[in-house]
């Protein structure tokens, strides 16, 4: 563990408070019948796909191209997640299938 117990508790408290605020903010701002500004509504619609795409790139930032072990597990398992999801459309199957494949690849095949 890189953090002390106190630091870890502080981090978790920050996550809890910020998460609650993102959920409570619309109620705090717009619960009196005011209409939310159009720009807020617009960003609320177009931001989520952009942010998820951003997080996918963030998750894959560790990919290297020096050897197949640096990129093949992520790309194969990532491809499997997308393919499984397009095929069956079942969240669990896609997430678990891809994660198990990735674990097999990094521990066994490319380990």
């Amino acid at each position, binding site marked *: 563990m890189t953090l002390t117990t106190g630091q870890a508790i502080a981090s978790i408290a920050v996550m809890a408070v910020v998460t609650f605020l993102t959920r409570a903010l619309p109620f705090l701002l717009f619960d009196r019948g005011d209409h939310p500004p159009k720009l807020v509504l*617009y960003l609320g619609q177009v931001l989520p796909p*952009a942010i998820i795409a*951003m997080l996918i790139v963030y998750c894959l930032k560790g990919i290297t191209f020096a050897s197949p072990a640096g990129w093949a597990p992520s790309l194969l398992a990532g491809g499997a997640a997308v393919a499984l999801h397009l095929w069956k459309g079942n969240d669990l199957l896609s997430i678990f299938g891809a994660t198990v494949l990735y674990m097999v690849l990094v521990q066994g095949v490319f380990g």
Partner: protein
Amino acid sequence: MDRKTLAAAFPVTVPVLMGYLAIGMAFGLMLQSAGYGVVWAFFMSLTIYAGSGQYLGVSLLATGASLPQVAFLTLMINFRHLVYGLSMLEKFRGMGARKLYMMFSLTDETYALLSSARPPEGVEEHDFYFCVALLDHSYWILGSVIGSLAGAALGFDTTGVDFAMTALFLVIAVGQWKAAGSHLPALLGAAATLASLMLVGAEDMLLPALGIIVLVLTLMRPRLEEHRTGKTKQEAGT
């Protein structure tokens, strides 16, 4: 809350039961492999209660991220919740003290259930919503505790289990891609983040990426608003 309400709410929540047990277990395993045991899993799931947020939380704890970084990343990943609240303003009106809990527990899945499910005849609407929210939360806590205990007891090699986070985001992205009127926001998000990764490196890539995304989306508003389907479509994912 009486048995009748519980009996009405439980069947509605079964898909979430399956999902939360599984995704919660993966979270418990990840947290365990990062060196944080079952007590941590329990309290994180009790107090934060966000799937992708907690997945990200594991890597934030493991890498020793600073508090401002933690706050910023949590804000980013949960930004979509702002939209959920907007469509629940009417539904939660008049729920009194329970409304605080309804706001706290408004995850993607609970949002999806509350958007579609209606209480059967003879069951009070607000009791029903509250019961659905409470059941979902308890599944999530249960899943993470089971995952954490399993990780500790089985002691198998959990290397690579953190890929569950990547897979979760990919699954959400596929759903958003299919529902979206325009693919430009998703493509922009990927392109801006890649550019940021090249320019400033992996450590500080997210803030510049987000800046570019918000700026470009704001500038493109006249064009993108023509594409809008008119209703907010959010895919499941935590």
